């Protein structure tokens, strides 16, 4: 699903956020990217989302080499990927349901179909009863779940999440991970950046550990669930 071949990302200042990184994530896998802040986790996800382009090397997502995705085609490319952000990036001028519906509006889905999908997505994250509320009135955990609902409402094959539990307390973090796990069970590939080692250990998924932009660990473990 995701393949990186000798990818380097150097910023204008000269420092390398990612250096010669190669790894692959298979379809249906759930993989964590770990490392200290500044290790290159975010940059890696940004390369996959085509917010950045690699200085060197190839990023191949679902068979598409991102190098060949023209600027004009980036929106269509991004629509295939669900994205979850640490700070949710919700829009506070509209209710929860409209936030979740945004990707469907962009994709041009009819209103009735969209509203059905929004309700289904909100139900999956357990927030159906809050669809009419403004996200500001929700707790941090609930806001993150709204962000997740928005990411999965188009049923992407790939979901990438950058520190999705970064602002959450342990209980809420486990709840969010449980939701991710359920998506994985129905075939969604997930790549989650996190530095919450204890949580990742409990999830028992494969880990890609980065240090100063290099791969220090990328082993495959037997999956166990607490």
């Amino acid at each position, binding site marked *: 699903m995701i393949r990186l071949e000798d990818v380097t990302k150097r910023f204008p200042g000269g420092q390398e956020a990612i250096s010669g990184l190669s790894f692959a994530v298979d379809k249906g896998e759930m993989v964590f990217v770990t490392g200290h802040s500044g290790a290159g986790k975010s940059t890696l996800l940004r390369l996959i989302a085509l*917010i950045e382009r690699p200085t060197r090397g190839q990023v191949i997502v679902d068979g598409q080499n991102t190098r060949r995705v023209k600027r004009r085609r980036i*929106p269509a*490319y991004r629509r295939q990927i669900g994205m979850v952000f640490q700070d949710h990036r919700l*829009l506070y001028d509209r209710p929860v349901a409209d936030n979740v519906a945004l990707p469907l509006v*962009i*994709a*041009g889905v*009819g209103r009735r179909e969209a509203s059905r999908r929004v309700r289904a997505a909100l139900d999956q994250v357990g927030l159906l009863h809050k669809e009419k509320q403004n996200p500001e009135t929700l707790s941090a955990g609930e806001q993150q779940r709204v962000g997740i609902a928005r990411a999965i409402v188009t049923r992407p094959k790939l979901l990438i999440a950058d520190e999705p539990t970064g602002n959450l307390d342990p209980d809420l973090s486990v709840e969010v991970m449980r939701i991710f796990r359920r998506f994985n069970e*129905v075939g969604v590939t997930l790549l989650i950046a996190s530095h919450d080692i204890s949580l990742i250990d409990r999830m028992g998924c494969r880990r890609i550990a980065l240090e100063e932009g290099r791969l220090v660990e990328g082993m495959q473990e037997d999956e166990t669930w607490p």
Partner: protein
Amino acid sequence: MALTRHADAVAPIRSSGPVSTWFSRHAATAFGSLVRLLRQPFASLMIILVIAVTLAIPAALNLVVHSAVAVSSGWANALDFSIYLKRGVSESEAKGLAKIIGERADVESVRLITADEALADFKKQSGFGDALDALTENPLPHTLVIRPAAANTTQSIILLQEELGNLPEAEFVQADTDWVRRFHAILDIVRRAIVIGASLLGLAIVVIIGNTIRLDIQNRREEIEVTKLIGASNGFVRRPFLWSGFWYGLTGGLLALGLVQYGLHLMAQPAARLASLYQSTASVLGLGLEESLAIIGIGVLLGLVGSWFAVARHLRRIEPR
């Protein structure tokens, strides 16, 4: 919350027909932009008022000039000229001459003012009645007032004047049409000035709307970034701002139309008096359907141009971080 319960969510995205989707998307965006304007009624009203006044001024001036042209083109008698006959020409000779000239194809009518009529008229109007009574002899000649046929050009009228002036009975020809030509020349200058002024004001509207949309884009930066992050195309992001420009232009144009109509209402009475002075019952000032649509259309066009500039310049720079 088991996933299997939500078959809906797993089904692939199904869009309705491309045309109806396009249409309903635009309708939704247009409505959304309008609601956004209405949510800040005071700010929106200020901008719309500025646009309306800026549109109404040249529209009103243009209307006045148009009316002046319409009124002055009714001054056909301004093309009349007079032939003063020599003193020795008798009244019957003058009558005969009037008849001959009146039969010409390039002459519409001839009116004879006899020397006696002219004197009587002069006595009445000058106030020198008693003094004139002292005259033993009428010093005034017979006069023929010629109205050229409508088919004449300015050039052929001059030729006609020359030809009739050369008649043995004619003393001299007096044509007092210069002032009409001067008036038309002035109107031409005024008209051109209005075009230049209107162009500058149009530019001002583009700048006003462009700046308003630019601020709107800045205020909605986060929203633009998020929508781009989750796959919105530039076209999708652009659309609501273009619709805002459209609404500003449309409402500004409608209000401008209202202002002009109200101005016309205020001017209706003096205009009617002017019309009555020219023995015309038709209204001198009026805004036709075409002009009304032009005001609104120009407003919409300038709104779209202004928002397009703002969007082209500022939206591209906003990329997700």
